[in-house]
């Protein structure tokens, strides 16, 4: 299990998270990140960690539990 939080103030709307983990992240009508699944399964963990790593605004925090 991983736990995700996002800082929508920092988000610059690059959408890298959506491309990395489309079942977990989305962009709202303003282009800002939204979390579809705050506690994704272990099999999505790699994608989520990648999203955290490539987010250019460092707006995503993932805690592994």
């Amino acid at each position, binding site marked *: 299990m991983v736990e995700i939080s996002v800082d929508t103030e920092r988000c610059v*709307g*690059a*959408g*890298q998270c*959506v*491309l990395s983990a489309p079942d977990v992240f989305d962009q709202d009508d303003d282009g800002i990140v939204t979390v579809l699944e705050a506690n994704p399964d272990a099999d999505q963990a790699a994608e989520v960690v990648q999203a955290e790593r490539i987010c*250019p605004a460092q707006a995503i925090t993932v805690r592994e539990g």
Partner: protein
Amino acid sequence: MTGTDTSLADFPMRRPGVAFPPPEYAHFREQPGLVRSRLPTGAAVWLVTRHEDVRTVLTDPRVSSNPDHDGFPSLLGRTGGVPSPDTMPGWFVALDPPEHDRFRKTLIPEFSVRRIRQLRPVVERIVGDRIDAMLAAGGTADLVADFALPVPSLVISGLLGVPEVDRDFFESRTRVLVTTTSTDQQREAATKQLLRYLDRLIAIKRKRPGDDLISRLLAAGTITPAELSGVSMLLLIAGHETTANNIALGVLTLLMHPQWIGDAGVVEELLRLHSVADLVALRVATEDLDVSGQLIRAGEGIVPLVAAANHDEGAFGCPHRFDPGRKARHHVAFGYGVHQCLGQNLVRIEMEAAYQALFDRIPGLRLARPAAELPFKYDGVLFGLHSLPVQW
């Protein structure tokens, strides 16, 4: 160290070929700290070549994109003709947060993954029309002039809301602006014509809004009409030659590695491999900072090299190998930090649509000249091809 130290290596360095950044980069990555180098202007700068260091520099709030700061590096003479927030309102790539954020926030809904996916049919139609035109003209083409350059300008003109009747004018002026073989005079004239055209277009959209980006930005009300000309110009230029170079180099690389044609990882790997915008993200320190043990002083110029970062062995195994199977998305071909390319998802769609249609519809596509003899843009700010003669 002063700005005219002659013992420093000259920068930029030349690439040896399509998929290779300058070989000096690998050597620089092994040096402790950062490497000092000399620009054509005579000024000294810090070169950043490690993947992690490039990301650090591009996210540090003490590092600025504003060319009005003393010490800001320029590759093209004193000011380099690069617009600054003073000379062109709305040129927000040159603004730092928080001024930058108003522009970015207003624009990001237009470039979200979902919004860009909706544009896919439009992009496919433009790509298809260009291929029709090439096929109708015979068995040979210059894939740069006949395809890679017109596609992004037709896409962006459609997005901005340029009426169909003006698209040829718009496309031809844009092409002059971004083609590296144009003279300074031609380029200046094209810039003026485009700015005048955009001003007029914005005035028309104020009176009669349509379903297009300019009308929506006017309606949002957070960007003034004067700023909107600068914003439109920026969108036009930023996405243009970069996309064209990516499309053309990608076709070349796929022709050399045809087993990968159609693979889902192709676009991301081509972006990483070619890193056409290696020299684009120039910066200056506004306070002293430390990067990998190197002290950078306030007022010193910094050049984070995205091609160097994308060919860092530490981040990508066998970095010079074209391997779409590696699925490495952590490349920094679009930059990193708050200025990371706003149009990146549009570029991806354009590249995908271009390769798919080209290789589907022209299965006999091949080079009309040996790859080694192709005219690469060795001296431009962006890496790419001046032309790509093909036949079928």
